[in-house]
């Protein structure tokens, strides 16, 4: 607790700009891990917050730096913070001194905005400009070729521009330029009624709608001290595990597509479709939207017989994963492809299945339980090798665990209310909400005043994993690129926001 509105589940430590680097080092020495950093303008005061997780302790640590918008960069010490700092520079109008990559990130070269939209004076005006090529390291050599691919690529995919410098098949340097899709989501929440903004969270990353809604609702519930009734907690688990299930089937469809295993791809996509149809029947929405609200669920769901409805999916899914495991031509392409070392995964902020495939044993559902996860049994698969094969193995096991969780959770449902009654408190509060999405750690931090949102920060898993992914591309070959990308299972909307 401190004199400002406290944030639950966190021990807060105030630091000055001068102490920052030493405190960060101290935290690293205690095996803490930085999760994200964000800024806020509380009136005229700039506040920068760094969120960390501790080893074997569900309580988070929050470093708070108040009263200055010029801050020493921690990116050299904690590389994963590099993107967060650049984001604060682009959107918040802050300055990070000594940043190793001080280039624009969110606002592209050639584009500008009248004032920083998350700056001291709030948002006004519109982003505008003309395309300019991104800032890139110079790669020189006789046979070096440069390829810009995108922003409109082949197939039905999200927008992004990828730059490759290569010789023959070998990629020397790879740079993804993202944020074409930046919609200014965080600023959209500002000034809105905190109870009624779930619909925005649901539209940050469509294939993560349920997890985003959940993390957002939990952040507000955390701020307001709302206890969600048990039935709603179990139903929430069911919704997000259904989301995990269709995402993981999609993942195997996409991965098989890149190894040219056509039937494997079709089967994965068909399984995905079956889960979405089941979701549509159960909830009215294939993307599990319009169900969550602050305090619980908007309406009850008859999920008692879910295990029965899932039976064909369980059998076919099991057979599908087994078949992939027996297909040497598929596995050969995954083995040794796109290796991410445990230290790079840790330093650069890898999350979810990508991190667990590189030996980082972390899962918010187990380490910082929310909803009804503390009542349920599940395993967290981990692998050491960090290649596409390890990432695929982790997803495969996670898919089976999702099914087990769905069966368990639906079997434990008991009649009861699905939302809590509460009064919206006046005054100022802060809250933190999180969810382990199919792609990893998702966090919402909210600051509310008299029921209205003042600041919402969204840390999405793909923002983390897009930063990590290029490390596994440098020095590999063009032929494996698509397989490697599919093995990461990234989305762009969540990253760009």
């Amino acid at each position, binding site marked *: 607790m401190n004199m400002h509105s406290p944030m639950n589940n966190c021990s807060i430590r105030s630091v000055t700009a001068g102490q920052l680097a030493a405190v960060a080092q101290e935290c690293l020495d205690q095996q803490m891990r930085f999760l994200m950093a964000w800024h806020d303008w509380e009136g005229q005061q700039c506040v920068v917050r760094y969120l960390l997780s501790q080893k074997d302790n569900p309580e988070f640590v929050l470093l708070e730096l108040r009263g200055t918008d010029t801050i020493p960069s921690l990116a050299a010490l904690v590389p994963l913070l590099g993107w967060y700092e650049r984001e604060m520079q682009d959107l918040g109008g802050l300055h990070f001194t000594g940043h190793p990559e001080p280039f624009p990130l969110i606002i592209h070269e050639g*584009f500008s*905005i009248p004032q920083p*939209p998350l700056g001291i004076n709030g*948002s*006004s*005006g*519109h*982003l*505008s400009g003309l*395309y300019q090529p991104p800032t890139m390291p110079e790669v020189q050599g006789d046979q070096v070729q440069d390829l810009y691919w995108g*922003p*409109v*690529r*082949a*197939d*039905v*995919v*999200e*927008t992004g521009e990828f730059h490759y410098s290569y010789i023959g098949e070998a990629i020397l340097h790879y740079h993804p330029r993202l944020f*074409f*899709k*930046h*919609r*200014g989501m965080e*600023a*959209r929440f500002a000034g809105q009624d905190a109870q*009624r903004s779930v*619909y*925005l969270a649901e*539209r940050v990353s*469509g294939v993560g709608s349920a997890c985003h809604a959940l993390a957002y609702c939990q952040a507000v519930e955390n701020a307001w001290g709302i206890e969600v009734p048990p039935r709603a907690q179990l139903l929430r688990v069911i919704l997000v595990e259904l989301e995990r299930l269709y995402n993981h089937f*999609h993942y195997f469809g996409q991965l098989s597509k890149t190894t040219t*295993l*056509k*039937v494997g791809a*079709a*089967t994965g*996509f*068909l399984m*995905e*479709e079956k889960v979405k*149809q089941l979701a*549509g*029947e*159960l909830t*009215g*929405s*294939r*993307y599990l*939207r*319009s169900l969550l609200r602050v305090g619980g669920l*908007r309406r009850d769901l008859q999920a008692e017989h879910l295990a029965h409805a899932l039976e064909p999916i369980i059998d076919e899914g099991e057979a599908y994963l087994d*078949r992939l495991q*027996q*297909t040497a*031509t598929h596995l050969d392409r995954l083995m040794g492809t796109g290796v991410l070392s445990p230290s790079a995964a840790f330093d650069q902020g890898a999350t979810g299945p990508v991190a667990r495939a590189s030996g980082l044993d972390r899962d918010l559902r187990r380490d910082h339980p929310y909803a009804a996860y503390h009542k349920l049994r599940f395993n967290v698969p981990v692998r050491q090798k960090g290649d596409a094969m390890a990432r695929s193995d982790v997803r495969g096991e996670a898919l089976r665990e999702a099914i087990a969780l769905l069966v368990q959770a639906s079997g434990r449902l008991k009649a009861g209310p699905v939302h809590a009654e509460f009064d919206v408190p006046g005054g100022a509060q802060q809250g933190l909400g999180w969810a382990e999405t199919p792609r990893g750690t998702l966090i919402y931090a909210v600051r509310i005043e008299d029921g209205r949102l003042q600041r919402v920060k969204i840390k999405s898993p793909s923002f983390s994993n897009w930063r990590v992914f290029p490390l596994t591309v440098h020095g590999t070959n063009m032929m494996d690129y698509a397989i490697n990308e599919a093995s990461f299972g990234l*989305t*762009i*909307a*969540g990253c760009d926001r």
Partner: protein
Amino acid sequence: MPLWTWTGLKAGKAATRWPQSGPDGQEGVLGMPRLDIAACRSGCDLCVESCPTQAIHQVDGEPVIDYGRCIVCQRCVEECPEGAMQSSYDWAFGVRQRSDLIWSAALESAEAADLRKRIAASQRRSLHIRHVDAGSCNACESEISALDNPFYNLHRLGIFFTPSPRFADLLMVTGPVTAPMHDVLLATWEAMPEPRSVMATGTCAVSGAPMDEGYAGGSGLEGILPVDIWLPGCPPNPAALIHALLLLVERMPQKVTGGQYAQ
């Protein structure tokens, strides 16, 4: 590889024949709310208040809905005390005229009435689609990709996705059109041979809602490209997409006129 061949044969049978016959796959999936104007209590504006995207306005004491702004959140249904806003399974909302997405008690336009009568005029024309993501949340892409899964199997209808705009007849746009995507989108359209069509796919692309306003939003395709089909939905489900595609090639009739859904 007999293992996969066998699997492939099984998956092949998964395809629906919809819209000729068979399931559309959208059992239970909610669509746009229906307005039962007879039940509406004059002077009440709870639905207007409830809508997060300003899809509902009041004109002369009665609600007017712009389905081009509807994200299917069902909040108006929950908050209408008279049950005048009713949840429905009306999701096949593709229309040729933007104005047909606006609810009005007046009778339907002549063109739509004509279209409604004309079914399966031609089964021959195939269609090649180039998709551009102009700032979506990715749920629209997820549904468009689903068209190629074995259940919907879009190829059976002679409709294909093509990587090159030069071979495309239809530009399918998702997202509100963010600033960096504006010129890219126009360049893709320019690269397409004539005649070319455009489909505004999803509520974002139709009106920008709920991603209009703000410093980095967009207001959809209006005033940017000549749109042939407007398809709201957040996201439009695969069957709604198929309906809209077949509407474009005049193989299925339009269902919605003046914001009202034909039975």
